[in-house]
């Protein structure tokens, strides 16, 4: 392997991991909703799109830095998620119907309405928040003068990655240490048992949906300095979130983190070595592989290891 090839490979791996960190945040949001409510939120990407537009509007009106808008978009998305759960999804849970997948189809409807309203307000133009640090990067040669290979670390990507890691750590603290977090985990494990232990399951559901949407909202704000936005951007992120949850194991937070990083790496490898247009296919190839060879996801591997049994 020549040094150029090595350079390309290492650079691809770095951008894959950075991308994976952000993907993990999206995936965690979906996986906790799935764990507690046992439904798939197909409006997940659209919620992220809403957060991105909130950040965009704040930037273009007040020149607020996208990273600061995390503090506004996240609570806003929390409220939006609570409203959706309370007024739309809860009524449907009570309805008798032939197909139990009604809730999933409902979230599709919600996603369609959100995306279309965004098209209505912002038109379908591609928009960007031109922050001045967008193209800044750190180079390996700055630190190590005689380096044989040149690597760079894009500044917005790394900042987004670090914030994503921080948010994930906060979430872990919330789920592991606080009472509400423990109740949420109890509801995810066994709804009826949690109910018997005096957990307000309905309230936990509402909180979880809010939490899931605020996580994806934070991810949206972190993507803003890197990506351009358009109203239909949500669909692809819904799929990404779903692929991560399958890859990581349904309802497993650690699995979602690992799944996100794997997906990020794989996607950036396909983009470099197969072609940009094929990157989404790479995403689905890994999804199909996971379905066939590892139906329980990464979580099943972790569980097997913890129990001390081989697969």
């Amino acid at each position: 392997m020549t040094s150029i090839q090595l350079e390309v490979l290492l650079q691809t791996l770095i951008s894959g991991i950075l991308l994976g960190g952000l993907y993990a945040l999206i995936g965690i949001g979906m996986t906790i909703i799935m764990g507690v409510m046992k439904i798939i939120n197909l409006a997940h990407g659209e919620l992220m799109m809403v957060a991105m537009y909130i950040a965009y509007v704040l930037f273009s009106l007040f020149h607020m830095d996208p990273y600061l808008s995390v503090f506004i978009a996240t609570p806003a998305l929390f409220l939006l998620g609570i409203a959706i759960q309370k007024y739309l999804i809860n009524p449907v849970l009570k309805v008798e119907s032939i197909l139990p997948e009604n809730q999933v189809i409902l979230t599709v409807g919600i996603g369609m309405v959100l995306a279309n309203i965004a098209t209505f307000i912002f038109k379908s133009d591609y928009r960007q928040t031109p922050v001045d640090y967008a193209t800044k990067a750190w180079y390996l040669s700055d630190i190590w003068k005689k380096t044989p290979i040149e690597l760079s670390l894009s500044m917005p990507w790394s900042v987004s990655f670090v914030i994503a890691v921080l948010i994930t750590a906060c979430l872990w603290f919330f789920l592991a240490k606080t009472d509400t977090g423990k109740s949420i985990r109890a509801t995810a494990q066994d709804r009826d048992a949690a109910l018997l232990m005096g957990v307000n399951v309905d309230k936990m559901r509402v909180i979880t949906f809010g939490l899931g949407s605020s996580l994806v909202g934070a991810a949206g704000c972190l993507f803003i300095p890197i990506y351009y936005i358009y109203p239909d951007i949500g669909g692809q992120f819904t799929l990404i979130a779903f692929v991560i949850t399958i890859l990581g194991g349904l309802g497993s937070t650690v699995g979602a983190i690992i799944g996100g990083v794997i997906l990020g790496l794989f996607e950036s490898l396909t983009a470099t070595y197969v072609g940009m247009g094929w990157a989404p296919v790479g995403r689905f190839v890994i999804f199909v592989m996971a379905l066939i060879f590892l139906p329980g996801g990464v979580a099943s591997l972790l569980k097997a290891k913890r129990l001390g049994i081989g697969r």
Partner: protein
Amino acid sequence: MQMRDNGFQMKKYFPIIIAVLLAALPFIGLSSYVMHIIILVIMWSVIGMAWNLLSGYCGQVSFGHAAFFGTGAYASGMLYSKFGISAWWGLPFSIIVVTLLALVIGYICLRLRGPFFALATLSMGVILRITAENLVNFTGGDLGIMIRERTWIEKTWYYYIILAVACGTFLAIKIVIESKLGYYFVAIREDQDAAESLGINTTLYKTIALCLSAMLTGFAGVFYMNYMGYIDPKVVFALHDISIVTIMVVMVGGVATYWGPVVGAIIMVLLSEIIRSVPALGTAHHTFFGILLIVIIIFLPNGIVGDFPKLRKLRDLSRGPS
């Protein structure tokens, strides 16, 4: 007793009466725009009925019927663009291609249940779209496939072809559902584990339902190719405009009913035409679809045909006691 007998007789001949009326339709000289709408309604009923077989009766909700629709369309379009023979040969040819595809998708997706199956099929549709976009030498990529010479200028023959396909689909589904197969499907929908423990090979029957449904959807795709004369990956593999609209057709009309998809297709096609004809609303058609979907799921979860008794009761209530 006499009345009930009459009602039964009526019900038995109802499909035949409808078919005869539809067959006579072109003779009253409708404008070509109205014919176009009717053809679209019938095409969507075919897709809706096909989806209903897999999802309404067998309970495997698919979010990716665009995969089969698009593959049917591409199978026929590529016969024309690569081999230079009439795209109508796609009708028999698509059976092979789409069934093979359904077997592959079934092998991967049918091991999942409920919402996970739904999402897996959804991503299958997206995979096929991206593949069709990227295999430029094979499918023509984003340029799509165009049939330069239309088979007929008049819409009458197109109308009869899609009508024949629709009648065939209706009959096929009626026969399947009223046979033992149909009972297996419903058993799988109601409780897959119970069905399995009763000795039903659930994987086999789910695969059969998927293949049948895919084949019928593929026919609609072939027809679309021939009728519209132009396809590209974004049109025929569209997530919202094909896969989700397919679900809406059945959800609005009535899940697991014979006439639900037809009613749903009429409503959906008319709705989208009305929205399209008002310039100010043109871009907002997804909002209307989405709101309709939400309203239907909350208030009429079994669709208009499925919840017809409920609707009648509501109407009686609003009239007040007489």
